[in-house]
């Protein structure tokens, strides 16, 4: 054999192997594709059969003022075992069927409501939400009032305050209402927008946009929106990831707003002391929330507006509820106006009446929203500020 023969043979051998390699690679890609499809279909079926999920996509994006906001002009659905609800967000990021000009119409009173999914009206048709019912009741009583719903699912008091300061002020509201739910304690720690330093509330991080950029990017994709709106597997994974991330953030932010407790924990060590440390951490979290609520009331009042805190009671059972505001400090509770539907809920409670949905995400039913709106109207009717700004309808 000459060296030329060997070179030719090698060349032919290599040429022969190339298509074989390509075929193997193609087969491998095909296998991966088949396996991925099988995995997704199997997982979706598993979840639908054994652990059905309420599909509640959240169209929440980063707002220009550094916290989250509803995606302007979004239109989406929630499907739970109890309800199918359509959501329409206006171009200003409010849950409403119309836009509101910054300039307030003469003779009209504006009420700005800030809150989380409860006041946003999750699991409720827009006509059944607290804000719509409140507006109706006010109008029925002869007041020309617009209720602007600035609520965003997942909001804590800190984000509500930032939204008020940076955005809602432009709408010149006369009355400002912040909702209060027990989850706000953790939300206020997690956001890291404020911290307590030697008992004084300080601004901490300028922004809180968890997954903000990614969410903004994903929500632009039609495929993502299809998956988020329809896949129970995606819903399950997202919910678990949110719980996990929220807990991680609370743990991390705990360190920055209450560092002394962590140091004491190191010092004490052991599991017996863990209880005390946890109690101290809980108290520090409550102190932070009390301070943020007090700051919100102060800021709104200094703007010359009325401030109200709306209590979202905690559901114990269908007929039993617990106050959520009693965790705030006594001095804060004494100095702010609180609208609480607790007594109304307890009076209305019956074994066959649901005030909170029980199979979906546990939000208000229309009955509860109505009771809260009635309670709010009773309180607002006593407001001198509202009387001054609104002209009775003829």
């Amino acid at each position, binding site marked *: 054999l000459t060296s030329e023969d060997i070179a030719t043979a090698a060349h032919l051998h290599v040429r022969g192997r190339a298509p074989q390699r390509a075929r193997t690679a193609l087969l491998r890609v095909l296998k991966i594709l088949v*396996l991925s499809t099988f*995995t997704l279909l*199997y*997982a979706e079926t*598993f*979840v639908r059969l*054994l*652990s059905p999920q309420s599909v509640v996509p959240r169209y929440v994006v980063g707002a220009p003022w550094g916290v989250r906001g509803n995606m302007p002009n979004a239109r989406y659905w929630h499907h739970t075992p109890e309800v199918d609800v359509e959501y329409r967000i206006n171009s200003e990021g409010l849950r409403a069927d119309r836009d509101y000009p910054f300039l307030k119409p003469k003779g009209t009173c504006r009420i700005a409501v800030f809150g989380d999914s409860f006041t946003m009206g999750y699991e409720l048709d827009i006509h059944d939400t607290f804000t719509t019912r409140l507006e109706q009741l006010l109008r029925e009583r002869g007041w020309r009032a617009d209720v602007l719903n600035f609520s965003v699912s997942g909001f804590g008091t800190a984000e509500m305050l930032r939204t008020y300061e940076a955005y809602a002020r432009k709408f010149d509201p006369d009355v400002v209402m912040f909702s209060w739910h027990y989850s706000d304690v953790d939300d206020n720690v997690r956001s890291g927008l404020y911290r307590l330093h030697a008992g004084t509330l300080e601004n901490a991080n300028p922004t809180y946009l968890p997954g903000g950029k990614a969410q903004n990017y994903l929500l632009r994709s039609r495929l993502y929106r299809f998956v988020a709106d329809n896949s129970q597997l995606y819903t*399950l*994974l997202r919910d*678990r990831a949110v*719980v*996990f991330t929220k*807990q*991680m953030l609370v743990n991390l932010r705990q360190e920055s707003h209450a560092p002394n407790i962590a*140091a004491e924990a*190191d*010092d004490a*060590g*052991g*599991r*017996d002391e863990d209880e005390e440390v946890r109690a101290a951490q809980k108290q520090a979290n409550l102190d932070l929330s009390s301070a943020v609520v007090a700051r919100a009331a102060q800021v709104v009042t200094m703007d010359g507006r009325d401030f109200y805190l709306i209590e979202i009671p905690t559901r114990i059972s269908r007929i039993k509820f617990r106050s959520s505001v009693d965790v705030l400090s006594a001095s804060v509770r004494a100095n702010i106006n609180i609208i609480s539907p607790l007594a109304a809920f307890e009076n209305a409670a019956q074994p066959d009446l649901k005030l909170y949905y029980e199979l979906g995400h546990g939000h208000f039913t229309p009955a509860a929203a109505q009771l809260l709106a009635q309670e709010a109207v009773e309180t607002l009717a006593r407001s001198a500020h509202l009387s001054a700004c609104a002209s009775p309808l003829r």
Partner: protein
Amino acid sequence: MLFNSSIFALFFALFFPIYLIVRRNVFRRNILLTIASYAFYGWWDARFLILVAISTSVDYMAALGASGKPVRSLDRLKSGAYLAAVTAASLVFAPLRNLWLALLVVAGILAATVWMKLIDHAAPERRPRLWLYLSLCTNLGILAFFKYCNFFVASFAALFALFGIKIDSPTLSIILPVGLSFYTFQALSRTIDSYRGQFEPKYSIVNYAAYHAFFPQLVAGPIERARHLMPQFEAVRSLDARMFYSGTLLFLWGLYQKIVIADNVAPIADAVFSAPAAKASAATLAALLAFTLQIYCDFCGYSNMARGLARCLGFDLIVNFNLPYFSRTPSEFWRRWHISLSSWLRDYLYISLGGNRKGQTRMYGNLMITMLLGGLWHGAAWNFVIWGGWHGAIQVLYRVLRIDSLIERWPLRTARGVALQVGAWAVTLTLVVLGWVFFVAHTTSDTLAIFGNLFGGSGYPAHELWTVAEYATPLALVEIYQRGTGKVEVLNSGPFLVRYTAALTVLLTIIAFGARGGREFIYFDF
């Protein structure tokens, strides 16, 4: 750091890529494993790294000396330097008030130095025994102080009180370091094996430190034997994708046992056993069955996760649980339950006491002593001793009545044989379940209340029983398959698509039904 926590996921994600880079160099790999293991343990409480280091440095020398090998000045220097370095590092992460630990270490080093001087001046044939004593005194001393000090003091005071003598028993505020009973027993076994000539220790403190503190099994076992695991730390371990996949599946199965079964049934047990007085029969029975399931899945789950993690790193740990609730006799139960501890007790306690070599009566006595001390190993309280005594007593009873050998002779081929075997299984399971009452009840009044509620109440249908059954049934079906086929690792057997689908199902079940909150493992307290 819990295996089922986010911080562990982060820890492993950072550790594993570095491990892959250094794994082909034994020295560097073992350095990395030691540092990672100390970080893993120190996350809970950095102060107690000193105890791990004391046990490591003493047993490094003791095993060499006990095997008859010379313990050179260099080895003593290495041990001392290792202990000093870990002490200094752990104090960096502990507040200043814990400086007393450094003083304790200095005092310990001085005591050990004096002891070593004595060894050096002793006759050569006595030296191995003296090295063994050093290991026993150190490990059992740490265990006695940190785990049993208050128990002994309180028990003595109670004993004197029986005779009308009142003694003020000051209780010290002592924290039980996590995993103490596990790593001290593992260290002891290596030194005893070296003394018995069953293991030959090598001159490398790095290899030994990595073995001693190996994080997958540091805090809750399996309690490994040096002759099985130590050689793995002295060689490059092969590791490929198949092995990693298999380890991941084993970890996944352990995670399923822990967070889907153990953590979900735990509230049912807690609701009754936290205040057992005046509870309904149904609730008590459900709680007892829930605890039976919880303790098994909690500990077996941990062992599987530990084995899975070790396999992902190329190491093989022993099987710690082999379907124990399918045992037909109490002896078989202990051959299948916490195998690494029961074999430890058999090899180093039961056999050392004479085993069954010195007549029947002595054998029964040895069995009772072994089980009583085995019970005490689980916790510094009398209820654990009673639990050990219960298991000792039923084993003795089975042996006196020769039930063990009778069951072995019953053929499985006949219907009568099968019925008898099933009957034997049911009786053993009942005895084991009743035994958990002693384990879970911390006072005599609680024990009496539980038994009273169990047999004296009324109304058995209960929602909780169905909940326990919901979690127990899939596990029972899997274990019946395992028992029938002899395949212990269920996710690692069968054709690819079956294995893949099974693993996917387990993963989805963990995501959908796993309990949230990261409950600690029960055996961390031991």
